[in-house]
């Protein structure tokens, strides 16, 4: 776990730190509630069939236009969408793309940030200058404007392309933190010692520098998961992210906005699911951050 990575910054012995961490986390009600909710959303994304069948409906694609936009009814607790499909099963299946994009985008951002950040922080010189200038370019964008322009130019709008664009504009913030923490680690005496006994550069990087500088960036990544889900839904909502026939909360909200006055339930239920999901990931990230490294608060 990343807990060990903080040892470089603190003088406390390792075992004490780890058990203290768990006690700290368990004591927080926000952590318990948010982690249960986040797990629930992930389960919904992994096996939507298990959740969608609770009220009889179950198949998000089985639709009857006669039911178009009808309010909640017996066996259909959320009502029907504009195509006459059961809204409850649609909302349940909507978790899938949100979680998939959250996983893909966060993993991608972390990977790019760790690789480029460590290269810049460890080798410095022209490598650092090059990577830092590229980061500056992406920091120069108002992110939403950049993402909209790039997504508009793509022909394909699926989970992969949306995640790629989120990664493109998300990695610099993480890479900057990674670079800073590698810079600090690389100056430590045990790195000099490892170099002194003749360890190769890849070995120093992988065995000594990386594990000891991953902490802050891991915490920051955890904090950004909620934001990634929110950004995806905002982009989709604006019409530049996922598109129908994809089942996603952003798509559902995008369609719902035209029918708000006649069928408010179309906007309400996906909004609730989206809000609870984002909120639980934000709270989870908060709790982890507080427990791992209170200085980042």
């Amino acid at each position, binding site marked *: 776990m990343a807990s060990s990575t903080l040892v470089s910054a603190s003088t406390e012995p390792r075992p004490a730190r780890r058990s203290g961490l768990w006690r700290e986390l368990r004591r927080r009600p926000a952590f318990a509630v948010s982690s249960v909710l986040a797990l629930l959303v992930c389960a919904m994304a992994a096996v939507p069939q298990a959740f969608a069948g609770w009220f009889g409906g179950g198949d998000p694609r089985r639709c009857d236009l006669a039911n178009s936009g009808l309010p909640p009814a017996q066996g259909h607790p959320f009502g029907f969408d504009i195509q006459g499909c059961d809204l409850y099963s649609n909302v349940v299946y909507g978790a899938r793309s949100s979680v998939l994009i959250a996983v893909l985008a966060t993993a991608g951002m972390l990977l790019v940030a760790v690789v480029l950040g460590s290269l810049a922080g460890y080798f410095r010189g022209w490598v650092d200058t090059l990577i830092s*200038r*590229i980061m*500056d*370019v992406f*920091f*120069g*964008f*108002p*992110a*939403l*404007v*950049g993402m*909209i*322009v*790039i997504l*508009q*130019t793509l*022909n394909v709008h699926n989970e992969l392309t949306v995640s790629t664009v989120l990664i493109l504009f998300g990695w610099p913030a993480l890479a900057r933190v990674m670079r800073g923490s590698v810079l600090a680690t690389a100056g430590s005496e045990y790195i000099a010692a490892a170099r002194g006994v003749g360890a190769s550069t890849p070995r120093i990087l992988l065995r000594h520098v990386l594990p000891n500088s991953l902490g802050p960036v891991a915490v920051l990544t955890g904090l950004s998961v*909620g934001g990634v889900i*929110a950004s995806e*839904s*905002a982009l989709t*909502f*604006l019409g530049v992210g996922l598109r129908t026939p994809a089942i996603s909360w952003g798509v559902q*909200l995008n369609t719902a*906005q035209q029918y*708000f*006055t006649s069928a408010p339930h179309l*906007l309400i239920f996906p*909004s609730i699911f*989206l*809000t*609870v999901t*984002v*909120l639980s990931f*934000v*709270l989870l990230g*908060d709790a982890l951050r507080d427990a791992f490294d209170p200085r980042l*608060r």
Partner: protein
Amino acid sequence: MGRYVLRRLLVAVPVLLGTTFIIYMAVYALPGDPIQALAGPNRVLSPSVEQALREQYHLDEPLLVRYGLYLAGLLTGDLGTSLTGRPVSEIIGASWPITVQLGVTAWLFMAVMGVLLGAAAGLRRGGPADVAVLGGTTLIMGVPFFVVAYVAQIVLGVNLGWLPVSGTEAGWPLAYVLPGLVLALYGLPQVARLTRTSVLDNLAADHVGTATAKGLPRRAVVIRHVLRNSLIPVVSLLGVSLGYLLSGTVLIEGIFNLPGLGYQIFTAIPQHDGPVVVGVGTLLVLVFLLVNLMVDLLYGILDPRIRLD
């Protein structure tokens, strides 16, 4: 100071080149033919007209040459001509006041509400105001702000009829209250929380203890010693968030139908109107960079302990 400004401006040049290049390449790599989009889907242009239009917009040159031409135009203040025949500078001239009005309204809301709420929470730690502010800001961070925008439109605009729902007919400030409020919520949690933490830090500081010990009334201690010092980090955050508000105006202008800069980008992209997207995008990036530079400078003036060079 002068050298620092110069260095920062020099660093901004490659950043500006990089950002315009990315926008330029993205827009001109758009699938579809801009000339056909201009003519309409079912019209056939005569070859000579098409040729003339292609030459006028430099569409027959390679991409890099066009980018070079664009940069050269930019240096002389020429932002190009929209495919609809209007100069891009004219479009920008007509729409920037709207974006500025929206941004300023939102920024004022954010600054005033954020500082007041944060100070109220920090001064009574653990009290009802503190709990409410912490809970409320967490909630705001969790609710996607386009959902907030729609709820605000429906409740305050349609159902209660207090404020105009969309458009700019009502003028400043009335037409901008609702979109400004929603946009302000975007940055409010950070401002309120930073103010709260900063007030807490300062309440525990030695000079505050001294002021209390020498018998200064609490009112004077809070206003003169706590709040003034607490605002230093907040001011810098308020500056930085000006740039992020700029980014948020794109969303808000779309939802509230305000014909500002972001709205122009939205309408230009489906029409393949490259010059407008590139021109407005470049302007937004430029303002974003300038705002961040000014914040850095302001920070040095506010807090003399920070040395710039």
